[in-house]
């Protein structure tokens, strides 16, 4: 907590943004903006910006707006006003100062959660407009330092966390060894050709949360899954380049990931509990590569858990007995409608399930999504303050008796952890995998 610094409107304490802005000139801004607008956008952006009737009805859709005492600057259309409206109106003739503010708005004041698209009467996709702004900022070299660092890591290592090739294999072997204390013949199968399941995770799993790989291996073992992980790059399904606006790198990352699974002749990819990675493989990355749908069947962990419970591939000792509530992550709920399956898995594994409201498609974002948490300490205080609505939602679920928050997404974990800590909510956070591992019968 001590490393986080508050920011004010006039003082932006981010070296990435500041260094980028210093190198800008009005000519460069105009040239880059017009390149992006003419080469990369079309009728969609034009129609969105031209059609918005400034009714303000999208405001209710945004947790920033609600959390920041209904400050108009934080309403979805208010953010478009500070970015693309002005840019389109002035045909790119905006100042470096304008770009500085626009970068802060686009990268740190919007989680790209698409909730506002469900509140705008026209269904204008403001997350798309913010993504265009990020794309412009990326091409101008004005990107928050911390998220740019993860993008650099993607460029160098094809994973988000600077994990070296040998460290990856070493981590898997370490987790396999640990798990063998419980199940003596357990394997984390590497590079097995023709498996049913290619399991991929995000960079932070081997880096910080290696026990999740352990748990996944136990679940796969218990379910009798024929599975594998790759020993070389392609194991990381995460994608911060998608959020910085570096679409060229996004394409390369997705290609490496899809091709790793295809090279091993896997029948499908199963992903760990991550939301943004799902958006990247199912929505943005595959499309950028020209695939209408992913080139190989790909399912999120929730779908996998749902499968093993509905096909009774796994036995449980007894249901998890502390009351739980469920956080619906944007990218797999508004991105894939997995809220029904998630509830079925929760009901199959937990004794008492308490809904938080609003829920399902209308759930509030954790505040971390869209790469906002990845913008790091300079924006942390503002991010947590902008999650007051989420905190109130959690307090309400707690008042109904919920002790544990299940969040089947890594970014949500990061965001909710900060909210729980900052607002003193005293709830425990878990992945669905944590619950399943805790209650399942360990195979012999």
């Amino acid at each position: 907590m001590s490393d986080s610094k508050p920011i004010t409107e006039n003082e932006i304490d981010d070296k990435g943004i500041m260094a980028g802005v210093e190198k800008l000139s009005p000519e460069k801004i105009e040239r880059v903006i017009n390149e992006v607008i003419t080469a990369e956008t079309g009728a969609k952006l034009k129609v969105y910006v031209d059609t918005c009737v400034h009714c303000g009805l999208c405001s209710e859709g945004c947790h920033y707006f609600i959390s920041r005492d209904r400050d108009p600057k934080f309403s979805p259309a208010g953010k478009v006003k500070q970015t693309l409206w002005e840019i389109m109106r002035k045909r790119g003739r905006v100042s470096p100062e304008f770009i500085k503010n626009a970068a802060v708005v686009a990268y740190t004041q919007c989680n790209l959660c698409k909730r506002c698209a469900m509140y705008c009467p026209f269904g204008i996709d403001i997350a798309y407009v913010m993504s265009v702004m990020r794309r412009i900022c990326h091409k101008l070299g004005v990107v928050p330092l911390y998220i740019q660092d993860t993008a650099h890591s993607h460029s160098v290592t094809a994973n988000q966390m600077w994990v070296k090739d040998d460290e990856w294999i070493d981590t898997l072997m370490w987790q396999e060894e640990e798990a063998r204390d419980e199940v003596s013949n357990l394997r984390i199968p590497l590079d097995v050709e023709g498996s049913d399941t290619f399991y991929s995770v995000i960079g932070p799993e081997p880096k910080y949360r290696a026990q999740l790989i352990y748990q996944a291996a136990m679940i796969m073992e218990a379910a009798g899954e024929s599975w594998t992980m790759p020993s070389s790059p392609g194991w990381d399904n995460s994608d911060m380049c998608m959020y910085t606006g570096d679409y060229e790198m996004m394409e390369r990352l997705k290609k490496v990931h899809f091709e790793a699974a295809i090279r091993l002749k896997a029948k499908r990819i199963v992903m760990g509990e991550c939301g943004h990675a799902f958006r990247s493989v199912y929505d943005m990355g595959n499309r950028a590569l020209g695939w209408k749908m992913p080139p190989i069947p790909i399912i999120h962990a929730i779908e996998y858990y749902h499968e093993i419970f509905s096909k009774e591939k796994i036995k449980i000792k007894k249901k998890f007995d502390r009351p739980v509530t469920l956080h619906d992550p944007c990218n797999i709920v508004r991105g894939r409608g997995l809220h029904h399956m998630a509830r079925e898995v929760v009901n199959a594994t937990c004794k008492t399930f308490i809904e938080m409201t609003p829920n399902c498609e209308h759930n509030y974002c954790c505040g971390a999504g869209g790469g906002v948490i990845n913008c790091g300490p300079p924006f942390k205080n503002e991010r947590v303050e902008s999650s007051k609505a989420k905190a109130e939602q959690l307090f309400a679920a707690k008042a109904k008796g919920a002790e544990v928050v299940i969040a089947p997404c890594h970014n949500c974990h990061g965001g909710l952890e900060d909210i729980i800590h900052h607002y003193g909510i005293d709830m425990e956070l878990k992945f669905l995998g944590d619950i399943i591992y805790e209650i399942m019968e360990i195979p012999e």
Partner: protein
Amino acid sequence: MHDIYSLVTGPLAWLSFALFLGGSIFRFTSLYRLAQKKDSAVFEYMSLRYALRSIAHWLTPFATRNMRLNPAMTVVTFAFHICLFIAPLFLFAHVILIQESFGFHFPTLPNAVADILSIIVVLSCLFFAGRRMFLPEVKYLTTWVDIAILVAVAAPFFTGFWVYHQWAGFQTMTLVHIFSGELMIAIIPFTKLFHMFLFPFIRGYIGSEFGNVRMAKDW
């Protein structure tokens, strides 16, 4: 006076219709061409079923969460849009004009009803203007063009009401009424009023994305 009357009911009327039709066709075709060239993915993901599902929800009062969160706005918006179309199209005086000019006739509204519908339109515009002036999140977004459009929409109804009741200067007001109506029609393709044609496409696209790809509701 008579010359001006001839002007507004003759050439200006035709000019207004021409601008409306020509402008709308131009904007449509240019946007369609641009979309084909640059947003071909939009066509790939369009789904008639889910587009209609979304449009139906957003055209049904209180069928969406946001409409329930803003009951006053919902009632006013629906009343406004319905009256905006019904009042001028089925007004007795307009139907007579159409019959005299083009020879076909369709049902008319009782004058008292048309009167009420016009009042609803004007009051709705006042409500919208009030939102623009007093609601911070709307005020922040409001430009002079937004206010001008509200005036342009309210004017034909306000002046029509004036003329029907034959208040002072109603003859001059008749000219203002006709001109303001023509102006409103003519600016549709060139302003945010064009949302009347774009609504089904924007809504339909996000409805298709949500329904067909994201398997989620968008209301």
